[in-house]
């Protein structure tokens, strides 16, 4: 029991930090430009596929560097020559534009790598148990992912809170126009943030691919979770994104190992199982089975109770 708890907590934190790597870019882009980048999860997927391809041909370390770099560059160009032009036609056009990009990445990935997943595995250099948690060996690769994610998080916070460009970004989150009128090149900052966001999504894909399944479904599955994280954390809020990422990471990880249902609860309060069987199948459903819908449930509750999210300064 305690062992399960420790492992699930660790897994949940790692998953949460990966979510944060994605959500941070998404929430910053939204806060500054008011655009919900629907292609963000697709960039994550593309990162995983690039990671797989480069790992196979050159090695994991080059993949770790080249994958995010390629996506970062691609993201910056996409902002500069695509989104910036679409911007003048309003938010709906921008949303449709990112939707188109998501669709294109999806189709391209399926065309190149096929409709079923690819065998992107943990790199052999990192494929060993690092330590034992009670009796279970814990894989070194997961700890590597955790360390990298924490390092990225610390770096991101340091840049945002200490550097001059960070100051400009924080101001532009709420008042991009005013920042421009003080003489800062806001469009360039947008491009930079979009590029870094895409690069981080790519990095999350490169390192997350071997843990989760690298397949064309991964973007759709993750995309919905990401929007949930960003809304729960509060649009544009980095601390909010961190908290919500960890929260959802832990909730999802714990829920899938919770093999309890209403049945067990009814038994526990002492009602005879046969006599209490009024709800039928509903009663037998375990928490593990409803785990996938828990984040959306949280999203709906959040929208009703506190539309600005945990740390957001404005409503959705």
């Amino acid at each position: 029991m305690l062992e399960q708890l420790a492992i699930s907590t660790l897994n949940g934190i790692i998953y949460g930090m990966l979510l944060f790597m994605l959500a941070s870019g998404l929430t910053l882009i939204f806060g500054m430009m008011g655009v919900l980048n629907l292609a963000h999860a697709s960039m994550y997927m593309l990162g995983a596929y690039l990671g797989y391809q480069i790992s196979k041909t050159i090695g994991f370390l080059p993949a770790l560097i080249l994958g995010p770099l390629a996506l970062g560059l691609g993201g910056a160009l996409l902002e500069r020559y695509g989104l910036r032009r679409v911007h003048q036609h309003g938010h709906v056009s921008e949303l449709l534009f990112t939707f188109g990009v998501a669709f294109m990445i999806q189709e391209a990935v399926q065309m190149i790598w096929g409709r079923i997943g690819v065998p992107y595995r943990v790199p052999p250099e990192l494929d060993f148990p690092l330590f034992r948690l009670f009796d279970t060996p814990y894989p070194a690769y997961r700890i590597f992912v955790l360390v990298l994610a924490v390092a990225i998080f610390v770096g991101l916070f340091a840049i945002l809170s200490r550097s001059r460009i960070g100051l400009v970004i924080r101001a532009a989150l709420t008042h991009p126009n005013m920042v421009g009128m003080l003489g800062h090149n806001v469009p360039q900052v947008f491009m930079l943030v979009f590029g870094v966001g895409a690069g981080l999504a790519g990095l999350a894909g490169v390192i997350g691919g071997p843990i989760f399944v690298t397949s064309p479904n991964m973007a759709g599955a993750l995309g919905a979770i990401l929007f949930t994280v960003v809304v729960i954390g509060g649009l544009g809020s980095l601390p909010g994104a961190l908290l919500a990422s960890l929260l959802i990471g832990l909730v999802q990880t714990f829920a899938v190992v919770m093999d309890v249902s209403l049945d067990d609860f009814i038994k526990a309060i002492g009602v005879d199982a046969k006599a209490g069987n009024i709800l039928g199948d509903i009663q037998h459903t375990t928490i593990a089975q409803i785990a996938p819908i828990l984040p959306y449930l949280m999203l709906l509750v959040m929208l009703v109770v506190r539309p600005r999210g945990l740390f957001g300064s404005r409503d959705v």
Partner: protein
Amino acid sequence: MLELQDVHAYYGKSHVLQGVNLHLTEGEIVTLLGRNGVGRSTTIKAIMGDVVCTGTIRFKGRDILGLKSYEIARLGVGYVPENRDIFPGLTVRENLLLGQKKRHAQGRWSMQDMFALFPRLEERAEVSAGVLSGGEQQMLTICRTLMGDPDLIMVDEPTEGLAPRMVELVADLLRRIAERGVSILLVEQKLTIALEISRRVYVMGHGRVVFEGTPASLSADATIRKEWLEV
């Protein structure tokens, strides 16, 4: 230094600026007067590149119409908006730092000068700008723009909603700014301070300039005041 010729601007179908002409020479304080909604704010937003417009706008002999706001700011135009757009989540110091266009820019004004002018800002340097009083926020917005060392500063209704003592402080600050050779284009509602500190005044009505002259000539012209200013 600044020259507008036949500037037109629209918000959707409404023709807000209907051919504005005005000019400003170096070191001048010029005030733009007029009733609510005649297009004074729109005029300075047009200069700042924040409103789409047609016509000619020249600054230091350069055509600036069509440039991006940040490019116009870098040429030496400073803008203090009417809604006091401070960055509420950032500290007072961070707000001032954002006024600087480059990291170690050395202009007419330093952070120390700002603090010397308004000790209150130094006391509250590490406080979120959002919790300052209205008057303090107004001082902060002006100081933030000064940190960017503009050659022309456009200030939109700085005294709106301020207590008389604060109004006096703002007027005093504007005079100090002009003393350092910075031109000021002021948008005001209060006739008293406008007449007191400006060299020339423009009166706007229905999207165009309806009067141009010295404060003394405006004081003498009761018909203009009655038709375009008094409510």
